């Protein structure tokens, strides 16, 4: 009995691996106990179930995405700090090689797929229906399924650390290293299954928001009047739909290699590992545009609002978004110029990669021209936007260097590359998401986040960023390769590595200040009583904060591009403000537990696949089919909010 338990503990819980695992176990148990105790003590279980788990309301789903994204930013950030601690000094043994491999793998995977993706989906959900004057997304039920697939995918990925072992072959998971013979154990299976689960949810989100933007816009909102954030979501969704199926295929085939013994990417029996690398990057490069395009959308909204000017070059902004979404699909091979595809192929992809700089440059100039002679207010969203511009331009310039194929042979897989993509992904995506979070926070929760602590976090983060990543360019040129877990003292890398680690800790500190800022502002943040705290331009600011469940009591009629601005300052208010006599009954989807159960069923099925316990897989998939059947036979999935209730509610808000 005891020996059986010890075997289980060592094999699955990895208790023989030392304090890192024990500390994680203890923290997880403590966190779960704390959450359960708090919910029980405050009698919030019913609230959690009714208001959140079973909801199909896009605003609540958006908030859940946001919470997950911040939690995953924490997890990925801890991974980053562990790595930087290991690399602070030469010849360190804080982590062993195996743990270091696991940690850089989970860091990359989590930051891209379980931090950046839910962060953009948080903003998709919270903002798009409000900006286009809709009551919800096109398919609210599917939207909830997308969230729960993401949630359980992320959960599956994260439990690998304490149950069975994390994946350890890099976030790109290249075969043949990831084939069973070289990488046994459940780690890689976790990676393959978990990402595919959330990937299916992502495809559904892409369909959902594309249809929402195509079909649910308020009357009068012609394509020429669609706000730029919504345009960026449209472009991002198009890329999602074109790219994510390739990821699904790549991961599924590699999983087949591992659990069914096929030979897609093996080196034996005719397999071709490069096929995986192509399929992966056919998704992987568009993926970085999937996450950057919505950030561009955020910057466009923020710059216009805080310069008190209409955006400069609206049409060229839209054209550049769409152009980037097309070019994004034609550059994937620049991730492996060294594969040896030949000068002609490399030339095509080098030129295509450099071409991305043109529409992106157009956008940078448009943001600058919008600010030119504007009345700029240095609020938190605007600060992050201003910091983004030099940061992203530097990242873009080093990107051009990397895109030059012959030069890339020198930079490939060095710290130069690491510095480059962190600069575009942090300086571009994370800055944009933080700007968006600060900008729309009052719309979500009805209060602003505290400016003073926000500015401390801003400066800590920005200084930390440059201290962390500028040395890495130099380290790369000095020959330091990515993924090395330690280095000898005589390479001349010591000072730069130490500086980089100090910068990383400054960014970690900034994250803590942001957490403190949120907690502080819940009590003391400036309340938003008007619904329009920033003097905004688009329709979401015409609604009270937080927004009622039905969004618009009466769907507005759109007569201008910056409709709320036109309402406030150009006498168009009668098209936006609801009149009591126009309010009708509103149909909203009923609450339903099924999306949550579908996610849970996929989780069970996926867990079975990871360990090849096929009974669990069968149970999970059978349960998914049952949920689908129940949905198909469902007769009535809507409930009505009576016009009188809405009238009363709007009256208490002082709107009718």
């Amino acid at each position, binding site marked *: 009995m005891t020996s059986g338990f010890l075997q289980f503990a060592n094999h699955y819980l990895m208790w023989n691996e030392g304090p890192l695992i024990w500390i994680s176990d203890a923290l997880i148990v403590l966190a779960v106990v704390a959450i359960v105790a708090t919910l029980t003590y405050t009698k919030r279980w019913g609230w959690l179930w009714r208001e959140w788990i079973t909801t199909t309301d896009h605003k609540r789903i958006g908030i859940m995405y946001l919470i997950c994204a911040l939690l995953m930013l924490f997890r990925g950030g801890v991974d980053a700090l562990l790595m930087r601690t290991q690399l602070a000094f030469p010849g360190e043994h804080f982590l062993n090689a195996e743990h270091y491999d696991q940690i850089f793998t989970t860091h990359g995977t989590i930051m891209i797929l379980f931090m950046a993706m839910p962060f953009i989906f948080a903003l998709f959900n919270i903002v798009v229906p409000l900006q286009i004057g809709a009551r919800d997304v096109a398919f609210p039920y599917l939207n909830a399924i997308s969230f729960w697939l993401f949630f359980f995918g992320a959960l599956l990925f994260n439990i690998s650390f304490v149950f069975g072992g994390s994946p350890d072959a890099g976030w790109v998971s290249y075969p043949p290293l990831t084939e069973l013979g070289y990488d046994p154990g459940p780690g890689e299976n976790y990676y393959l299954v978990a990402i595919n689960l959330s990937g299916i949810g992502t495809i559904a989100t892409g369909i959902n928001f594309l249809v929402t933007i195509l079909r649910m816009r308020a009357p009068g909102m012609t394509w020429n009047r669609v706000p730029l954030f919504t345009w960026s979501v449209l472009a991002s969704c198009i890329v999602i739909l074109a790219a994510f199926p390739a990821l699904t*295929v790549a991961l599924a085939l590699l999983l087949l290699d591992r659990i069914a013994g096929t*030979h897609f990417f093996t080196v034996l029996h005719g397999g071709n590992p490069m096929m995986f690398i192509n399929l992966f990057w056919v998704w992987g490069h568009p993926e970085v545009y999937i996450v950057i395009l919505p950030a561009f959308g955020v910057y466009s909204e923020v710059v216009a609002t805080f310069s008190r000017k209409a955006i400069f070059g609206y049409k060229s902004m839209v054209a550049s978004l769409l152009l980037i979404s097309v070019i994004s699909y034609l550059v994937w091979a620049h991730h492996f110029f060294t594969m040896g595809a030949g000068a002609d192929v490399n030339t095509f992809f080098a030129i295509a990669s450099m071409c991305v700089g043109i529409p992106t440059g157009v956008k940078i100039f448009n943001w600058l021209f919008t600010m030119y002679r504007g009345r700029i207010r240095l609020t938190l969203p605007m600060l992050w936007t201003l910091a983004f511009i030099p940061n992203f331009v530097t990242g873009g310039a080093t990107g051009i260097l990397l895109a030059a194929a012959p030069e890339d042979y020198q930079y490939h897989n060095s710290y130069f590359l690491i510095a480059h993509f962190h600069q575009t992904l942090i300086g571009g995506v994370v800055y944009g998401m933080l700007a968006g979070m600060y900008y729309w926070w009052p719309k979500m929760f009805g209060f602003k986040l505290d400016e003073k602590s926000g500015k401390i976090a801003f400066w800590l983060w920005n200084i930390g960023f440059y201290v962390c990543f500028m040395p890495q360019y130099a380290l790369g040129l000095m020959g330091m390769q990515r993924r090395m877990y330690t280095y000898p003292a005589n390479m001349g890398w010591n000072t730069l590595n130490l500086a980089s680690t100090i910068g990383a800790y400054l960014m970690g500190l900034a994250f803590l200040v942001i957490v403190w800022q949120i907690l502080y502002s819940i009590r003391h943040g400036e309340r938003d009583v008007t619904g329009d705290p920033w003097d905004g331009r688009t329709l979401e600011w015409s609604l009270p904060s937080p927004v009622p469940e039905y969004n618009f009591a009466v769907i507005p009629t759109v007569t201008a591009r910056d409709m709320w601005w036109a309402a406030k300052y150009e006498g168009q208010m009668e098209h936006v403000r609801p009149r009591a006599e126009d309010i009708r009954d509103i149909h909203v989807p009923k609450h339903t537990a099924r999306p949550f159960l579908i996610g849970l069923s996929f989780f069970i099925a996926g867990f079975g696949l990871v360990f090849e316990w096929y009974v669990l897989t069968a149970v999970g998939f059978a349960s998914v089919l049952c949920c689908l059947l129940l949905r198909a*036979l469902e007769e009535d999935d809507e409930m009505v909010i009576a016009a009188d209730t809405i009238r009363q509610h709007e009256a208490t808000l002082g709107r009718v």
Partner: protein
Amino acid sequence: MATRAHAMGEPRDGGTRALALEYTHAEDRTRILGFWIFLATDMILFGCLFATYLVLRTHMDGGPTPATLFDMKGFGAETLALLTSSFTGGLATLSMRDGRQKSVAFWMSVTIVLGLTFLGIEASEFAHDAFIGAVWQRSAFLSSFFTLVGTHGCHVTFGVLWMLVTLYQVLRRGLTPRTARKVFVVNLYWHFLDVVWIFIFTVVYLTGMVM
């Protein structure tokens, strides 16, 4: 343009004629559009599987070749069954447009039977391949072959189940805008699988026979 609008179920003469039943409610129109977009993503998924097959089809590792494996009678019969089922599925949609419930049920049943026939032949082909040692662990060619054709087969299996559930709803609830939309969408899915099969027929089987 006029013909395309009609094919999409929208009125031919600018709105004076009634919309096709499945298009009468805005919500159903939205769902049909969403389903078209889903089919586009599924097409890309198959595109990736085709690309993998084309890269790996010559990697036979001294094992069974397409010429020894593919049986003209077998895949010919599969093609006949599936193409005919797509036609009968289309007849079900047309009957639905005319509001003839019994006819819809009849043609959907025929489609289901033809789909099952297709699956039966495919399963026996696969079983025969396995019997002579052509399993997907044997070579990269066989891995990609079974995955591509098998993924299509899984889609058809799901389509049969889906059509059964839809048939049940038509019999139970009659032809309402909602059930009409479901009949329309499941048939879209079915036609899509037929299109994919035509590519499998050409790229995998016919090219394999002459390779």
